[in-house]
């Protein structure tokens, strides 16, 4: 990991204005930066604006104030330097796995043969060999999320944005996907910003965990994770790991409980 700052978020505010309803302040004055090759996670109660921040960084929506810098340059719309893996299923159901993985490349005008060759490389990395010509509805949830990750990686972004990518998976599949994500990250050396509501997932994967407070979302605390790498699932049973998870949980417990009562 070098010290160069890849992603910088400066004083981002977001207020959703709605017709006939009170507006929602989703984010207030978010400042953060992510170094090149760093793996950073954001945890926070549901509704604390995590997805909104990720969509602003990706350029899908505009902030009400502040700006996003990639390698020092302000960005205000989606670009090939960032790629997103969405919380909801977002594969094209009428395209096969290989065509889905190649989707971003073909949109960018890459020749079909080249796009397919690149797609095949990431299909291999994501462990999807043999499923190239399957359709998304023929795959399990875990396999579909691998396709989503492969599709984002295929455009060779500098920054990978992941919005609760494993939330819909069962516990065992999730653990396997976590270790696979780690090895992909080690192999590709991407800068990763991951959202999760699972604290142990954040600690297990990250160099740093950013804890959000509930609405409006603000950064409550940034916690460096100095646990040694490479990490295996055994780490999750070590006292240092458990202690860190417990510390973060205490930071957000009150808000999560309040959120449960509200909904």
């Amino acid at each position, binding site marked *: 990991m070098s010290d160069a700052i890849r992603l910088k978020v400066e004083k981002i505010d977001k207020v959703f204005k709605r017709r006939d309803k009170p507006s929602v302040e989703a984010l207030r004055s978010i400042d953060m930066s992510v170094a090149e090759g760093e793996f950073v996670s954001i945890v926070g109660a549901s509704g604390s604006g995590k997805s909104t921040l990720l969509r602003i960084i990706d350029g899908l929506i505009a902030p009400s104030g502040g700006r996003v810098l990639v390698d020092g340059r302000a960005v205000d719309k989606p670009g090939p330097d960032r*790629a997103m893996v969405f919380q*909801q299923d977002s594969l094209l159901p009428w395209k096969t796995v290989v065509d889905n993985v190649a989707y971003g490349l073909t949109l960018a005008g890459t020749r079909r043969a080249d796009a397919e060759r690149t797609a095949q490389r990431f299909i291999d990395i994501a462990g999807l060999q043999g499923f190239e010509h399957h*359709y998304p509805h023929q795959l399990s949830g875990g396999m579909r999320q691998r396709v989503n990750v492969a599709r984002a990686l295929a455009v060779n972004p500098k920054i990978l944005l992941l919005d609760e990518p494993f939330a819909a998976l069962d516990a065992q599949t999730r653990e396997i996907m976590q270790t696979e994500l780690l090895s992909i990250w080690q192999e590709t050396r991407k800068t990763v910003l991951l959202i999760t509501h699972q604290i142990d997932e954040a600690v297990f994967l990250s160099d740093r965990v950013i804890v959000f407070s509930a609405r409006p979302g603000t950064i409550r605390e940034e916690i460096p994770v100095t646990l040694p790498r490479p990490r295996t699932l055994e780490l999750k049973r070590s006292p240092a790991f458990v202690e860190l998870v417990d510390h973060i949980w205490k930071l957000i417990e009150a808000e999560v409980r309040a959120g449960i009562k509200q909904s």
Partner: protein
Amino acid sequence: MRQLYEFLEQDNRSAGFARVAISTLAVLLVWQLVSMLVTNRLLLVPPAEVAAALVKEVESGAMWTNAVATVTAVVTSFIVSVAIGVAVGLALASSRVLSLTGGPVLSALNSVPIIALAPLFIAWLGLGFASKFVLVIMVAVFPVVVTTEAGLRATDKQLVEAARSFNATPLQIFSTVTFPYALPFIVSGIRVAWARALVGIVVAEFFGSFAGFGFAILSASQTFDTARVLGYVIMLGAMGLIGSVLFATLERRLAPWRQE
């Protein structure tokens, strides 16, 4: 028996053919039994006599003349209906103002039995191709318009957002997300349009033409030739069935993920 039952339940081509064969046989059987009870041959004739009448029509060349007239007229007007319907549906889906102002007019027109205007169309356009053409378009275009607009509007927001995240242009969003998503809807509208087009063509031919299945049915019934009437009705039924099976298959092919 049990094995036959399980075979028929399968979702493959030969089981499908077997199902059609069995239901056709059942209809023929019931028809045969009823025609043995109803002995007035002006009202009902048994299947064998209808088959004989059909053979006679083929031998005399009348079948060919009528088939050419009906099929060319209905296929050309149907294709034009689909083209107009998709174009209008696209326009309505892309403009909110257009949809709000044009929508009520369209649904009013859609619920009026336009078929009842057939005599008027023939008075305006004369006997022959033109009146058939216009009448078929008038009845067949609406289902395509409605399903095209609905399909384009139903598009999955999440898929559009993913495309935007990959920097897709509005045209790319249309061609890779919105339109493929709408396609199965559009085909279901086309399936309905085909059934309506067949009704339209027959009615147009009843009122004004010198050839075609509708014309043949009318002239046969004026000479109380019930066998010939039923023979041509069966021809029309076959056309309807072929279209329906074809478009239903296409719909399934275009949206395999909806089966699960």
